[in-house]
């Protein structure tokens, strides 16, 4: 009898402990419901209405989504985003890879990895507003330092209006993005390199493999999953590109709307043109695109694990 009572008590204690677990989770759950779940559901609801940010909201069902798929400006903005991200990721990964080659070479034995890692990461810590202001000043058409240097080196004879033409303005944004983020990619790639078993390198050295052979036959294949991960997470972030193009164009998206990104466009729709319902629909279209990209990441990662 006493044994049974003891078991019941133990079970009750265990249940009580479980309940405490729930209590401890509550603050997070409540915050999450209020600040994450509710805004998402509210945005979804808004996307089916003609809400302007004030006044009444009437159901228009899928009208906003139909409009989004037919809106040439939204898709132009999306293409702009892809162009800027595309160049950015090539530069960002290229530079990070180059640095990884240098720092991972067992023969070079480069010193000061921790210091350089911190230095390369620094641009990531500067506020976007400061970065935009810095580059706008450097790239000033008539009197900017960048043009002055190029002219003194004899590379150009006339100052170039970098931010005045669609193509150059997009290149500038891509370069800024690469400069800000290459440190982050470098850290991830270096972490990947450090995770590679040193025995592979020793075996390659014994077999007489050269520096480049070792890199292309050992380092690169083993780094591939990390590189795919960096590229695709960067795509997810890149599709949400907003701050630098917004600041560089003074909120106008010019020249020739070339700096309008998808998020910049939906921001303008919602907060400048007061078409919150449509902006919410655009946000969900973007959400779907980003979700597909995320699914690709998971699929690629899982495939690797199965192998």
């Amino acid at each position, binding site marked *: 009898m006493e044994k049974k009572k003891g078991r019941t008590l133990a079970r009750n204690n265990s249940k009580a402990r479980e309940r405490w677990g729930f209590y401890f989770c509550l603050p997070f759950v409540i915050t999450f419901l209020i600040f994450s779940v509710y805004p998402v559901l509210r945005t979804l609801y808004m996307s089916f209405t003609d809400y302007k*940010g004030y006044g009444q909201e009437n159901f228009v069902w899928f009208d906003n989504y139909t409009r989004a798929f037919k809106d040439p*400006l939204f898709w132009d903005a999306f293409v702009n985003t892809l162009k800027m991200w595309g160049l950015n990721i090539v530069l960002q990964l290229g530079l990070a890879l180059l640095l990884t080659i240098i720092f991972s070479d067992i023969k070079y034995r480069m010193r000061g990895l921790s210091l350089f890692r911190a230095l390369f990461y620094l641009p990531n810590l500067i506020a976007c507003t400061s970065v935009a202001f810095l580059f706008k000043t450097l790239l000033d058409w008539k009197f900017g330092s960048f043009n002055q240097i190029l002219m003194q080196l004899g590379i150009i004879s006339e100052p170039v209006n970098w931010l005045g033409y669609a193509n150059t303005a997009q290149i500038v944004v891509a370069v800024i993005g690469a400069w800000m983020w290459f440190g982050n990619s470098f850290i991830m790639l270096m972490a990947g390199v450090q995770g590679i078993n040193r025995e592979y390198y020793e075996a390659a050295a014994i077999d007489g493999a050269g520096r480049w052979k070792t890199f292309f036959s050992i380092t690169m294949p083993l780094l591939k999953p990390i590189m795919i991960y960096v590229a695709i997470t960067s795509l997810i972030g890149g599709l949400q590109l907003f701050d630098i193009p917004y600041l560089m164009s003074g909120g106008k998206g010019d020249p*020739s709307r070339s700096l309008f990104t998808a998020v910049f466009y939906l921001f303008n729709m919602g907060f400048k*043109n007061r078409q919150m319902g449509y902006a919410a629909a655009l946000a969900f279209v973007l959400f779907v695109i980003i979700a597909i990209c995320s699914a690709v990441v998971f699929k690629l990662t899982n495939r690797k694990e199965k192998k």
Partner: protein
Amino acid sequence: MKLKRIFTAILAGTMALSMAACGGNTDSTTGSADGEAAKPEKLVVWTLAEDLKDFAAHYTEKTGIDVEVNVIAPADYPTKLNTSLGSQSDEVDIIVGEPQMLPDFFDAGYFADLSEFDSAAQEKLVPYIYEAGKDSNGTLRALSYQVTAGSVIYRLDLAEEVFGTSDPEEIGKLFSSYDAILDTAAKLKEKGYCIFGDTGALRWFANANTPWVKDGKLQVTEDSLGYFDTAVELYQKEYVAFAPEWSAAWYASMAGELPVNAGWTALEDIEEGTPTTQIFSYIMPSWGAVTIRDNAQDNIGNFGVCEGISSFFGGGTFIGVNEYSKNKEAAKDFVEFCTLNEETSEWWIDESNGDIVSMKSVLEANKDYENPAFGNQKTYEFFMKQAENIDYSLITRYDTEIGNAFGTAIVAVQNGEKDKETALKEFYTTVKATYPEIEVPEA
């Protein structure tokens, strides 16, 4: 067990508080109509410019009622107002808006009915101010203490040197059409001067006689196309100084010489030895005249004002009462004090050192005032006439975005990136995509 109870109580309290915080404003409208205190402790104002701080101090001096004025940047103002008043908050009593913001704010129901001032406003104020303050049903909801009629402000010395006269009537003829403006610019260029700081100066005349949108259709008229072509020609022939409005070089030009092609560069960053020029004219609303006067330094008194292609106005602070305020009557008293009180209007002319007020009787009383900053020209008389000519039906809620899109098209042609046809086609596409309800010539 005790600890558990305390913990549960804290959690329940936190939840209750967060729910209360979310729904705290729901019953804020209840106190608005009746049972109001005759004299509130404090009135709260949200505004776009510093002006109302002076009005508030003057009001406190006269009535003893404290007025807290919060100045919010124009770019952030609509969002702040929509966020707060969208949830029917009573945290602010007096709100404002610029003319292009007012139709949306009126539709949203943020501005309380000011019909009790209707007849006084119609009788006392310049007609376009009264028109701008009414909603689509004709109910008065906002009023302004100032008129912001526009003018061409020109340099008297350069006018004498290049055209042999500085008479406003004669100089006005040089700005009477786009062709005249191009001729004027060419003559100034011959003497080494620039007609404007930047081609954007002409934007005020883009819809001089027709609104951008009429009967649901986009109107691209001779006026707007004339603006397009003239802006491109002025740019490509380098008739302007390439100093955009509000840039350091543009401010510097009011006192005399400025470096050519300065753009937005700070003056200290411009290389020594850069060629300089002088700007002949500025096209701006009446507050621009005050800006020029305040930056003219030794050049003060060396400016005149004349009419351009058409009368226009830009900006201006319209004051109203928050529909959800608990101090509506007191707030209405403040609005009346600022906009319909002759003594305040006279006071504001002195206090602002030259703002153009909206009260007809005060403008009339000051019409013979010879303004030393503008070569002793009778500027009140001039702006009064301009204000009377303003056709408020030319203003639509679409103007800001359509104007920006048109500007983008012009810049693309100026830079040589696109031809006019392509740029206009893209402009139509932009308007159609932004406002699907507007019919455009082609998209």
